[in-house]
């Protein structure tokens, strides 16, 4: 991998993991505050362990047994689909046509739903465990997909897993420091950036796997990133000009929580 490809590789995996982990952390914090920290941390840890096992069980055989061109077309198509969905929503949010994620509102909604009298809380709270487990597992599926996709396509599964793990640690530490101020995270900007990365890698790999000769080989990747970033910005400006006179979309914040899951591909 060239240095620029490595940089995009790390940025894409780190960004995707960080965004999904912020959403998972909201659920874990809500479960911890309302149902106790022990079941919440146990549930989150169990889900992380399961996701790590999935990376090893699925990723390793893919690296060794599937031809690289087949892998790149399939992984590229999945990333392209995922990236386009992320990018479309990020552009709609950036231009004011769609309400932005409000992690504080999601947190408040989750805590209201889960709150129970501490005296009546069971010693082994299955609800707290399962909410945290489900939250981390469902948000983590996309992370696993990206880790396996990037890791297998460049035969760098270890690097991709390490970057995703680093993102999880950074988000967990940041979450502990800022407590419930998750709304301060510029989530839509990160999603826009990551969406551009996923679409760029997806297009590049689909082409490579299908026999397209990209000008400059790996050097075409930064060019694709630039072209798609410019397209997303132009679309955001154009969409903002089409905004009705009433102003940007408001109303109920879009919940990315699996407990209120309604978003489909990529929140």
């Amino acid at each position: 991998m060239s240095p620029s490809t490595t940089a995009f590789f790390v940025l894409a995996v780190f960004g995707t993991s960080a965004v999904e982990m912020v959403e998972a952390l909201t659920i874990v914090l809500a479960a911890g505050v309302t149902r106790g920290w022990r079941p919440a941390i146990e549930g989150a840890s169990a889900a992380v362990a399961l996701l790590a096992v999935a990376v090893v069980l699925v990723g390793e055989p893919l690296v060794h047994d599937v031809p690289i061109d087949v892998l790149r077309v399939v992984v590229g198509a999945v990333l392209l689909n995922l990236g386009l969905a992320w990018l479309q929503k990020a552009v709609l949010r950036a231009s004011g046509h769609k309400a932005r994620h409000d992690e504080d509102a999601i947190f408040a909604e989750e805590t209201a739903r889960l709150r129970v009298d501490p005296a009546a809380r069971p010693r082994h709270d299955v609800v707290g465990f399962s909410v945290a487990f489900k939250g981390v597992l469902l948000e983590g599926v996309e992370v696993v997909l990206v880790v396996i996709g990037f890791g297998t396509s460049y035969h760098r599964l270890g690097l991709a897993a390490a970057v995703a793990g680093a993102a999880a640690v950074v988000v967990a530490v940041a979450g502990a420091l800022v407590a419930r101020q998750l709304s301060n995270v510029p989530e839509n900007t990160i999603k826009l950036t990551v969406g551009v990365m996923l679409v760029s890698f997806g297009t590049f790999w689909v082409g490579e796997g299908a026999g397209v000769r990209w000008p400059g080989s790996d050097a075409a990747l930064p060019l694709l990133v630039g072209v798609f970033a410019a397209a997303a910005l132009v679309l955001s400006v154009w969409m903002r000009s089409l905004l009705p006179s009433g102003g940007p979309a408001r109303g109920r914040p879009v919940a990315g929580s699996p407990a209120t899951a309604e978003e489909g591909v990529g929140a």
Partner: protein
Amino acid sequence: MKRALYAAGRGLWEFVVGESPATFVATLVIVGLAFALGGHGWVAAVVLPLLVIVTLAGGVYLGRRRTAEGNPG
């Protein structure tokens, strides 16, 4: 077993296709065209990114219409 398979299939469908089946279909078209144009030198390197941008613009436009009609999608 049957219920578990149904749930897994439904989960996979929601994850891959979700609320934007048009994007999913467009992705399949892009993959098909990549194979069709694979042997045509630089043409594919120009056409594929353009198609992706058209898909993005179309998805954003449809998404705007959905939100304008009151379905936040």
